[in-house]
Each structure stands twice: as C-alpha cells, then as structure tokens.
C-alpha cells in the first residue's frame, strides 16, 4: 500500500563505546548517557545476562536466561562460569572438572582447553564471545546504532593469558576491545569518590569466581592504583560447591541414591542451594528445598552454620588484602574509604570481615552487581573523550620474568608497577654460529620457573652466524595499558628489528583467533540474511493486508478496470515470491505493488480528507 514516509533522521546513529562487565556468573553492558553511566536492559527488560551458554539439540546457541533454563534440561550441552576456564590448560581444571555438567575435549597440557557441548567443541574465548555477542546485540537494539567498540573488565589479578583470552573473545564477537580495565578499578570510577576528596580507597571485589583487592590513591581526578592482589579462583562458586556437596551427601544417605550421577538433577539442586544462600543474606535461617522424581529433600540451614562453613573461604580473601596493604606500604588505619563489589559481598559475614580488617564502614550505595559495568562505561567515556577530568593509572598484578640458567627466574618488571611499563634485556648466543635464541617468559612471584606461570616462549630468529657471545640482541618487554605483554627485539650491531614468534602458553594463536572470527562472520552473515528475509516478509504482510482491506473501499470500485487488474496481478506476484529466501526479490515485488496502488491510495486519502472536512463545522 502506498504510504508517505516521514524521515526522522538518525539522531541515535553516533557510534558508542560500551562498557562490558564479563562476569563469572552474570554479564552486563553499560553506556554513558550525557555523562551518566547507565546499564542497558535486554529485550526482557533485565540488564543482567547470566553468563551461561547452551547449545540446543538443533545446534542453536542459547545465551543468558534461556541457557540457564537449559542447564536443568540439557546440562551436558550447557556451560556456566566459563570465566574460570579462560587462559587455562586442561591440567589447571582437573580438580573441578567433575563438578561441571559439561565435558572437556582432550587437549595438550600447554594448549588452551576446549569444552564439548553436544557435537561441537569450543574454546573458552568462543563461549565468552557468545555472551559478548548477546550484550552487543542488546546494546545495538537499545541504542539503535551499531556497536563495534568496547571496554571490557577483567579481574585485577588476571594474568597475561587470561587477559589475552578475554581480548580474543571480544574480537571473535566482532568487538574492538579498546581497553581491558581491572574490575576493582572500574568500580572505584563508578563511585566517583574523587569528587568528594583526595584519599586512599580500598576496593574489595568478591564475585562469582574471582577475588580481587586494590588499594588506590585518589588525587584530583587521577585514580592511581598503589597495589593489587587477589585470587582468580576464589568466589561465590566455591560456596555453592560447598553447599552442593553437603546436600548431595544428605540425599545419598536419605534416599540411598547417587544424585551426582544425574547432571540435570545436580544443576537443579545447585540452583536450590544458591537460592538458599541468597536468602541467608537477609534471613537468620532458611531451608534448602529440592524435589526430584516425586521425592523431596529439605534441610534447614542457619546463618550460624553457614558462617561456620564459609569462614575458611572468607579468610582466604584476607591474605591478599594484607599483601596489598603491605605492598602499598600502608596500614589499615590509613584507608579512608572501602568499596564493596561483587555479589558475594552481600553476605553479612563478608561485610563484617571487611569492616574489621579495614576499620572502615564500606560503601554499598551502588548495586554490587552493576557497579563494575557502570565503571567500564565511565572508562569508555575517558577513551572517547567524553570524560576528560578522570584518569586511571593501573598496575600489573604479577611480576614478569624470564627463565635463566638452572630454571631460575630473573625478574624484569615487578608486580604493582604502574602500566604501561617496560624493561630491556640483552641476549647473546652460547654456541658458534648460533642463529636463534629461545626465551621463556613467566609470570609470578616465585624464584623457580616451575613455580611460576608460563606465559609464552619466544624464538629470536635470524641472528647472523657469529662466534659465541658476539651477537647482541636487545629485547624490549612492554606491558601495555591492558596488562598484556608486547615483545620487540633488535640486533644491537646492525640495528635491525628481529622477528619475534610468539607461542602463547594456554592461549590461542593469532591464526586460530582469525579462523574463529571468520567463522563467526559467516554465521553473522547467515543470521543477517535470515533477518533480511524475515523483515521483507513482515513488510509484505503489511502491504498485502492493507491492499485486501482497500478492496472494500468505494475508491477501489471507482478505479479503471486495467488499474484493478494490475493491482491484482502485482498482488499475486508478491504472493508467489513470498516464501522465497531472496529478500531482494520480495522487496522488488513489494515496490511494484506499492506503485500499482499509488492512485488508489491518493484517491482514498482525498475521500478521507473531504469526508473529514464535511463533518467539521467551520
């Protein structure tokens, strides 16, 4: 049906840099709205996207609430807490593999692990990319503009491999990751504590899977991190596992069945203990309630017992806090303010432990689930230039070193150095005519290579053959503002740049990431194609219905026979192509029907106007 379109322009079409909190349990996306950070709701109105991904039996990817539901029905095809697997090798997760409902695909010990979901296998960055793509989609729908750039938050204590894996996930999801920001630092940005006064702030960030503590000095809009510490494998998940084990043992002795052998039931039980845990933050006592196969299990859980159970976990967070204070050369009394971040800080025992340690009443004004995403949006504003009075100076959480003789570590950049940070080291050959030098880079605080985390192996190639010890290669190690290592090498005699081949430990090679990007673009193109067809059909529906309706209008009968015949011909042609997959063809037929009905539309409009005028007293 011919219509008159009004173009409202595209005021919303400016490009946005979004801030993303890619969490262990939940993920959120936020943006800066006229200087104020705001979280972006999904289609269901909820800004929280559970960090769960599930592959349906038809191969469809489910993310968020839908995937969370699938955890109960198709546990072996579903994955949660993928963040705990980022930048890890298969040996790293041996301890908890049994607790997850999905299986790991066999892989080499030094390679990135892969998970099996249905018939497909995925690396953790690919799984994270599904979550990121959902957030990207939510943002694009909400902002009505394409979103291609993002700031993504990571635990401050994430090592190089974990950071690289997060950046890879962004690339696979079609996002240019402009900056990785440490979660506690992002939280301090969201609180805008710099507006109040200069001072020392401690951020205690206890989330679903990771624990971080950062000590910051605020001065005139500068957020200078003095020290950071943490544990990337300590969070609410550990509390859930504790409660789950107890419930499984109860059920074993009460029902005499091994529920652990039924992954779907285990996931429903896990949900039940998590709900009980949440209730205990407000109530002194609650029940864990669970029914299965017509039987029901109920266990009373008092906060007193809960506190006793989780005390060892809460105490594990205090060591890093003391370490961070010592590294910042501060005493607890010198901390002016404490900020709580992460869902696990809702637990009363956690709050009181923080209060006792830092002797300060913690800030809890902002929702601990949203504060990190809000801070990421502020950092996005700093990068876009929208925010020019704030600046983050963050640190590297772990010392960087290289392997020397006897398996010892020579430290090049110490932990808590402000980033970007660099160090230069000279290397030479040990054998006549040697043309390459192998360099092994590690991260960690210990003296021996075997006690540190292998980060990468570099092969310095193309050294001119010379007597041993004559070549002099200068290697520059640079940790960038994302906390990621960059290496460049130069021959001091010739001044020539050397190629540095990186083989990241537990990581994906550039080629692998490129392959995944291509695959996801293909998928995205397929999705895009489908959407185009769907939209064309919707438009066809509208015009077909309007034309059928117009046939009842006196104006239709007033048309010439030839005009009516043309309309019917075009109508039939559109109906013929309606079910084709060619959206361009459908659109062409829509246009033709549109043209054929133009006179009819004008006549109907004129009739309507004159009728309306007749009914109006002037």
């Amino acid at each position: 049906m011919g219509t008159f379109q009004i173009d409202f322009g595209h005021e919303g079409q400016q490009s946005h840099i979004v801030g993303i909190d890619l969490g262990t349990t939940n993920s959120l996306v936020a943006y800066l709205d006229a200087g104020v950070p705001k979280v972006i709701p999904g289609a269901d109105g909820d800004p929280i996207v559970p960090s769960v991904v599930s592959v349906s039996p038809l191969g469809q990817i489910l993310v968020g609430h839908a995937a969370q539901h699938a955890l109960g029905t198709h546990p072996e095809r579903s994955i949660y807490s993928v963040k705990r697997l980022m930048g890890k090798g298969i040996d790293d997760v041996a301890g908890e593999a049994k607790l997850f409902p999905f299986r790991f695909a066999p892989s080499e010990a030094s390679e990135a692990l892969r998970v099996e979901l249905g018939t497909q296998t995925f690396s953790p960055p690919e799984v994270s990319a599904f979550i990121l793509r959902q957030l990207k989609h939510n943002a694009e729908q909400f902002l009505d503009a394409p979103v291609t750039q993002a700031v993504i938050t990571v635990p401050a204590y994430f090592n190089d491999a974990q950071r690289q894996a997060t950046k890879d996930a962004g690339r696979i999801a079609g996002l240019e990751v402009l900056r990785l920001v440490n979660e506690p630092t992002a939280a301090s940005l969201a609180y805008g504590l710099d507006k109040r006064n200069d001072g020392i702030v401690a951020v205690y960030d206890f989330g679903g899977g990771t624990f971080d503590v950062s000590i910051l000095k605020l001065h005139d809009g500068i957020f200078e991190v003095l020290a950071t510490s943490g544990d990337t494998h300590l969070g609410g998940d550990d509390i859930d596992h504790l409660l789950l084990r107890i419930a499984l043992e109860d059920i074993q002795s009460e029902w005499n069945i091994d529920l652990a052998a039924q992954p779907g039931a285990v996931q429903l039980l896990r949900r039940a203990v998590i709900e009980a845990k949440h209730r205990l933050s407000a109530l002194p006592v609650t029940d864990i309630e669970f029914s299965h196969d017509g039987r029901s299990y109920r266990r009373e859980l008092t906060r007193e017992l809960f506190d006793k159970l989780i005390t060892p976990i809460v105490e594990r967070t205090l060591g890093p806090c003391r370490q961070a204070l010592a590294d910042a050369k501060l005493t607890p009394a010198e901390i002016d303010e404490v900020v709580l971040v992460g869902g696990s800080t809702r637990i009363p025992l956690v709050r009181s432990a923080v209060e006792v340690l830092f002797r300060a009443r913690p800030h809890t004004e902002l929702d601990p689930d949203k504060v990190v995403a809000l801070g990421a949006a502020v950092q996005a504003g700093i990068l876009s230039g929208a925010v020019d009075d704030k600046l983050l100076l963050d640190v590297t959480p772990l010392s960087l070193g290289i392997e020397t003789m006897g398996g010892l570590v020579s430290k090049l950049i110490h932990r808590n150095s402000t980033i970007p940070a660099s160090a230069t080291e000279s290397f030479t050959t040990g054998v006549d005519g040697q043309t390459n030098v192998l360099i092994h880079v590690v991260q960690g605080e210990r003296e021996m290579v075997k006690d540190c985390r292998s980060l990468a192996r570099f092969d310095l190639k193309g050294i001119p053959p010379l007597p041993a010890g004559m070549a002099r290669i200068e290697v520059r190690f640079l940790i960038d503002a994302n906390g990621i290592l960059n290496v460049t090498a130069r021959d001091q005699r010739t001044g020539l740049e050397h190629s540095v081949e990186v083989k990241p430990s537990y990581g994906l090679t550039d080629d692998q990431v490129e392959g995944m990007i291509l695959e996801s673009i293909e998928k995205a193109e397929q999705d895009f194609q489908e959407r185009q067809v769907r939209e064309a059909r919707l438009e066809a529906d509208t015009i077909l219905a309007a034309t059928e309706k117009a046939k009842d209008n006196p104006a239709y009968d007033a048309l010439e026979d030839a005009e009516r015949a043309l309309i019917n011909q075009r109508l039939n042609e559109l109906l013929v192509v309606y079910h084709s997959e060619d959206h361009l063809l459908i659109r062409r037929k829509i246009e033709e029907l549109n043209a054929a009905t133009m006179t009819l539309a004008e006549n109907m409009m004129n009739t309507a106007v004159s009728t309306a005028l007749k009914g109006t007293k002037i």
Partner: protein
Amino acid sequence: MSPVDYFEVFGIRPSLAIDLSALQKRFYELSRQWHPDRFAARSPEERQQALDNTAALNDAFRVLRDPVSRAEYLLAHNGLAIAGQGGKDVPPDLLEEALELNMALEEADSSDLGRFQKQYGEMLETIDRDLGALFADYDATPGEAILLNVRQLLNRRKYISNLTAKIGKAFEAGLAH
C-alpha cells in the same frame, strides 16, 4: 628503542636529592598529557607514541622516586654501575660482625637476633643520613669523587639490608614453629 634518560623524561637535571612531592606532581601532569587513554581515537602511530612515552614516564618515576634506585641509576648513568655482585663483598669492618651474626642465626637465639636487628637498623639509619648529605653535596658540585663515595655507601647499605632480611626470615621461620 634508544635508552631513555629518566631525568630527561621529567625535565630535570641529573641529581640525587629530589623533591618527591614535586616529582609526584609532575608525574600526574605528564600522565594526563601522555597516557594512551588520551589517544584512543588517534592514528596507530600516535597511539604507539603515547604508549612509549607513558611506559618511559612510569619506568622513570618508579626508579627516581626511590632514593636508592635513583642513586644506582645515576651511578650506572655515569659508568659506575654497581655490579650484579653488589652487596656480596663483605665490607672489611663488618667481617667480624657478619661471622657473629651467622653463629647467632645457626643457634637461632632470638634475643641475640633481636640485638642484631636493632644494631643493623641503626646502621641503616646512619647510612641513609650520610647518603642524604652526599646527595646534597653532589647536587651542589657534581663530581666523580662524590659518586664513588655514594657507591661505597650503597654497597654497604645493600650488605646490611641483606643481613636484616636474613634475620627477618629467621624470625618468620621461628614464629611459624
């Protein structure tokens, strides 16, 4: 990748006694100007420049704000680097004491260790005072003779620091029992 002069980064002449609050203030100012966050939307070349500038700034601030690493840097700058073995050669006047300390460490006598710790603490204070005076002398009239004295004191300081670290470890181990 030409070596960066840390003093030049801050626009100050090579000196040993530095006003820390002024250094910190300049560090913040330069961070605001050079930080990669300020260049996120610029060309790759400008972004690389911002990264290099800020890395140099951070490296320089880390070295210059600590008096000992600052002095070591200035010595190296003048071709007087403290060798990797620095702090391992026993200053002659401390030889006897070092032997005594090693005996006390073997016996793990906590009262003896406490006495040593106190004594070394006082020695370090004296050294730091003397270093402060040398720093001021050098800044007033720079010369290699003063730097050689500085190097000698730094060696001595390092040696005593190592001893106190040893005592600290022994105490920790003792407390763990």
